[in-house]
């Protein structure tokens, strides 16, 4: 566990540092901000935190089915690959801003990328 991705990135403290930065980027990104209109910000921040924990290889029990169910209403509103790409970009930019080494960013991106088909309901 000592040399897991989650620990190398900095564990829970890293998630806490990343969540505000990431959520600010997502909310101010005109390509995807529409999906967050009228959403409770506190609840959304908790979800962003869960997503970052997942991407950092941290403890989670999300299944592909959870991802499908959780995003189905957004897919119905037109959520597609271009939006997923935008989120991936914001994730990378957040980690770069936090000075996470490039190879760890790549690993986190690969984990996040693995949820693409479930998130988009493919």
């Amino acid at each position, binding site marked *: 566990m000592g040399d897991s991705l989650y620990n190398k990135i900095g564990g*829970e403290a890293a998630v*806490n540092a990343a*969540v*505000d930065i990431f*959520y*600010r980027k997502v*909310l*101010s990104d005109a390509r995807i901000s529409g999906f967050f209109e009228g959403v409770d*910000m*506190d609840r959304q*921040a*908790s*979800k962003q*935190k*869960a997503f970052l*924990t997942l991407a950092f290889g*941290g*403890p*989670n*029990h*999300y299944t592909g089915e*959870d991802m499908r169910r*959780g995003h189905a209403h957004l897919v119905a509103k037109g959520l597609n690959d271009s939006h997923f790409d935008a989120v991936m970009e914001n994730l990378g930019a957040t980690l770069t801003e936090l000075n996470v080494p490039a190879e760890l960013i790549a690993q986190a991106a690969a984990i996040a990328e693995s949820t693409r088909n479930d998130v988009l309901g493919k």
Partner: protein
Amino acid sequence: MKRIIFEGQSYDCKETESILDCLTTNGVPVPSSCKAGVCQTCLMRALQGSVPPESQRGLKSTLVERNYFMACSCYPVEDMEVALSGTGAGKMPATVVALESLNSEIICVKLHPSGPFEYRSGQYVNFFRDASTARSYSLASVPKLDDCIELHVRKVPQGQVSTWIHESLSPGDTVEISEASGDCFYVPGNPDQGLLLIGTGSGLAPLYGIIRDALLQGHSGPIRLYHGSLIVAGLYLMEELRQLARECLNFTYTPCVSEGAAPEGFSPGIVLDVALKDTPRLSGWRVYLCGNPAMVNAAKKKTFFAGASMRDIHADPF
């Protein structure tokens, strides 16, 4: 084996089981999602028994203070009584002590609860007109400073409860209120942190309580209050707040009016804009937002973009 009481029923929780496992295995529906102590979907509240700290990791400080925890990562160390979040507010009678006018449409209602009443300034109570008609009002009083609990009630046109409070209640009457709930209040610790408080109309009530509570608890960082209304007549407690600002050097009070020219001593403009112009960078600040929902929602976003952490933004729209 620990005993878990939920809605009057007792359940046995095995050493290896979380409260979420224990309740769901027994057919009690508790909403959950990540099952890893992150997403906070399975938030519950402990009524009895100590809460293991690992089940509160990452929760807002105001939730920790009120014994909230995540059921999925709570492995009880002793017997506990638990409730779903947002439930369990009992009712109690209270006597009306005084009804005092604050401005042309807002009165201060002073109540004396019939029994021990625990609350934190800034939380709210439900005020019952009858069994099925109630409205929420925030607590402007401070437990250690005020004998009564105090609510600021604005007379809402056609408001079923507020009109009744304004027109039909008299000192000496007995009314029913709920226990205090809500997580918009001051949490001690971090006394040097800046506090920014923005309110409109009777949204001043919780802020007035929070500010006096923070000062009483020795908060030493800057405390900046912005209270807005369309016109001067919509504001209230101006003399009390100016006096407080004279007594406490770390507290500033800026009354704002958004319509027409502002008289001397008032700032012209929308309260949120005035506040953010004075303090454009909110990184490290704690923020309290109360009042008009449109203002509160806009302010949540703007103060977050100005650098305040989501965990430090406390909002109460009404």
